[in-house]
Structure formats: C-alpha cells, structure tokens
C-alpha cells in the first residue's frame, strides 16, 4: 500500500515533536491508545489566558499514518481557541492526509488525543470536562 505524499511529508518531517511540562497548569496532556494495539499518541497543548492554544507538541508510537495524523493535529491546534479545537473532526484529518479506510483509526486516535488534552486542561483549571461521545466513526 502506498502512502500519500502528505503522510510521507509529515512522517519524514514531523512538526512539533516534543514534550511540554505537564505539571504546568496551562498545559493539557492527552495520552491515548495502547501499546498492545500498536498505537499510542501523546498530545499536549499550552493555552494562554485568552484560551488560545499557543503551543502544541506530540509524540507517537505507531505507523506512518498515526505519526502523520498527530503531527498534522499539532499544526492545526496552534492559534486556535480551545473551543475551536474541540471542533476538529477525525474526518478532516482523513481528508487532508488522504488516509485509506484501514488507516481511519489513526485519525480517530488523533481526535481522541486532542479532546483528551483539552479535557485535561479544563479539569486542571476548574472547568467541567466535556462529555465525549465515543468517537468511533
């Protein structure tokens, strides 16, 4: 199976690889997936006083499409407000990266990681976590 050019680009030059200080109050961390499933994503956001995401970092254990999905997610997150970030749908990632059907779960995982990071940030800052519908598309 051949990969799309965009997957290869993100895979070869992943954006925003790294770690934010998860102890900080304005950093939200999402860790999703499981080693047994062959995919683990950690996505982190740093949020300013206006609820704008100023930085995003990821690390991913997984196939090329999983790495590309999380790399793309960090690109999209930066500059968005937290509320805007909640709107990112896995199908947007599928479309942007031209993921084949067998790789859709990679985009689902990236969406889960975004929401999980946002909820971590919300809880840390005394806000209610947003109830997530189980996002299996």
């Amino acid at each position, binding site marked *: *199976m051949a*990969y799309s050019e965009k997957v290869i680009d993100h*895979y070869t030059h*992943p954006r925003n*690889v790294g*770690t934010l200080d998860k102890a900080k109050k304005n950093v939200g961390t999402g*860790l*999703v*997936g*499981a*080693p*047994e*499933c*062959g*995919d*683990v*994503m*950690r996505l982190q956001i740093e949020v300013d006083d206006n609820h704008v995401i100023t930085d995003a970092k990821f*690390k*991913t*254990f*997984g*196939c*090329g499409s*999983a*790495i590309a999905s999380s790399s793309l997610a960090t690109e999209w997150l930066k500059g968005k407000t937290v509320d805007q970030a909640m709107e990112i749908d896995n199908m947007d990632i599928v479309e942007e990266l031209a993921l084949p059907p*067998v*790789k859709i*779960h990679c985009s*689902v*995982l990236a969406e*889960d990681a975004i929401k999980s990071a946002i909820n971590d940030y919300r809880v840390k800052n005394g806000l209610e976590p947003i109830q997530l519908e189980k996002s299996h598309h």
Partner: protein
Amino acid sequence: MLELPIYLDNNATTPMDPRVLEAMLPYFTNKFGNAASRNHSFGWVAEEAVDYARGQAAKIIGANEKEIIFTSGATESNNLAIKGVFEMYQQKGNHIITVVTEHKCVLDSAHHIEKIGGKVTFLQVKPDGLIDLKELEDAITDKTILISVMYANNEIGVIQPVREISAIARKHGVLFHTDATQAVGKIPVDVNADGIDLLSFTGHKLYGPKGCGALYVRRKNPRVKVTAQIDGGGHERGMRSGTLNVPGIVGFGKACEIAMEEMATESVRLAALRDKLEKGVTVMEETYVNGNTENRLPHVSNVSFKYVEGEGLMMAMKDLAVSSGSACTSASLEPSYVLKSLGLNDDLAHSSIRFGLGRFTTEEEVDYAIEVTKKAVTHLRELSPLWEMFKEGIDLDSIEWAEH
C-alpha cells in the same frame, strides 16, 4: 555500487536465478508440448523434461522421482497432504495433530477437516518457537492418522526437531507430513533419514519460478496415498490432475539442482551475514531476537525493536524491503500470531522486523541495512512517547491504557 532498494524479504519470495530462467525459456516457445501427449515428439520432449525435473526435485530431498507430485505451489501441496490424507484414511481415524505456528494454509486446511467431521489438536509452542515432544506424544490417540509439523518457520526461522517427531509418529503408526517450504534448498532435508511420509515444497522460495511446487508422497515403508483434490485426467499418478506446467516444472527442477549444489557454501555465507546483521542492530538497547537462535535457518532473523512500531519503522527503513509482525494495516489490528504464540507481548510483536537474506544479498547491502535500521529506530524512538516513559523509568504496565 550499492543498488537501491535492497531486497531483504527472501522468506516471502526469492528472485529467480538467471540460470533457472535460461533453462525454462525453450519450454515456453518451441518445446511447448503437452507432457501427456504420448503420440508425437512434442509430447515426448515435454515429458522427458518433466521426468528430468522430477529427478532433480526428488534428489534435493533424498526421494525417488516416482514420489514427487507436481502442484501449483506449497499452498496446494499442504492442502493436498492434509485433506488428501484425511479423506484417504478416515476409516482408520479422524484425528490430526498440527501446530499453532503453521502457515495459514496448513491451519485453514486443518479447520476444513474440523468442518467435515474431523478432530484437530493444535499444539502450542515453547517461548523459543519449538514444540514440546512430550505434548505431541500425549496428543496422539488411537484415532490419530496424521501429524503435520512444519520443518522451519517462515517468520522466525526456527527448525523443529523433525527426526524426533517422525520417530514418535512411527512408533504410533501415524503418518508425518511436513511443510518444508522454507527449509528445502537452505538446509539438508532427507525424507528417509528424517522419517518423513509427506513433504511440501515450492519453487519460488528457492530461486525458482512462482506457480510450481511439489508434494512428496512416500511409496514404500509405508506406502502412502492421498485422495486427489483436483479431479481430471489422472495426471501425477491420479493424485493431481491438470496439464503439467512444463516450463515451471523445468525451472523448479533446475532451481533444486542449483540450491543443492550450492547449499553447503551458501548456508555458511548467509549465516555469517545474518550474524553480522544481528550483531549490528542488537547493539541498540531494548532490541531482542525472536525465537530459538540455535536451531534455525541460516538466512532469517526476526528482531523486535521495543517502543517502536513495526510498520512505522519499515517506512523509515527506506530502500529496505523487509516485513513486520505488526498488523497495523489489517482490520483486526492483530499482530503476528506466530510471535504471539511465543508468548511475546503484543507490543513486542508490533515492534518486530523480519530480515530475510538471500543468494543475491551482499555484505555491502547488510552493512547498509544495519546503518539504515539503526538510524530509523533512533529516529522513531525520539518520536515515541513509550520510549520517553521507559527512559524516565515509568513502568508501562502500570499505566491503564485506553483500548481503542
């Protein structure tokens, strides 16, 4: 000059040796006859070529040429052996024994036996990939008619104790079939010394053409018969009908002859290259060789690079054609059942790479492969949250992972 990409997937298939192609070519064009045409020279020429190839194929496994049934490949041979023995001997008993690490075509043939009223025991393997002989003997009942255990495994290369298995089979009057697809042409195989009653092998794993293989069926002590699975003109002593694939058979025979001639030196060369490769990549920490390393094929190495996912890794090992036990592409997301049966955790199975060296692999290619692999693993570990946790001393088993 190093030519890219480099093919290191010789357990999947091998490139055809140019000497094999040369032997085959006339049988596509001017020597096109049907080997079953008994009344003119076109048929005689084809028949003569098939007989010669039958001798070559028999010789590499120490058999008589009358014991070779040509098939379309090892999948067909395995189907014919298992279903054919079951149908032929079901008056005697309905139980067969095989192993969980067999190739899918053996496992699925066994499942077919279950569907038509047979009973199958699937033996587990030890952590090194070998079966427990006592477990095998204990599984035999008075209804057992067949034991089918592969000679060498396609994913990890471990060689089963074939002689001990056949001794047990003989003692209990049970037939012994072995899928020797990965072994023939790589290590010495002798149906008499090894006590084998039926043996499957194929051309494209030993530098011959795809689409031609054989099933060895013992003729003496005991005389074995299988019920044909393809009916028709009664070719191949009535056990496999269909016009013979003369060019394929000629190539298969030639491939056997070359492999036999070169085996002694080639296996030493390949084992040295394999060891070099293994030594080169296992200098990295948290890197493990899977399966028994003493009884195994000379040309295959299966390595897990912990905290890195196999498919992602293959993508980074650009210009290297290898395979992985990871199954990120399959709908089930299940990693290799062979690696799992060794008791490997799923995450290690997801992190595995199979390197399969071959006749045309050079030392320069191996050196290149070592460097590319190390670079890829290092790159992906920098990207891996699991690697970071491991480096921070976090026990990954203590984390409650969300299944997805």
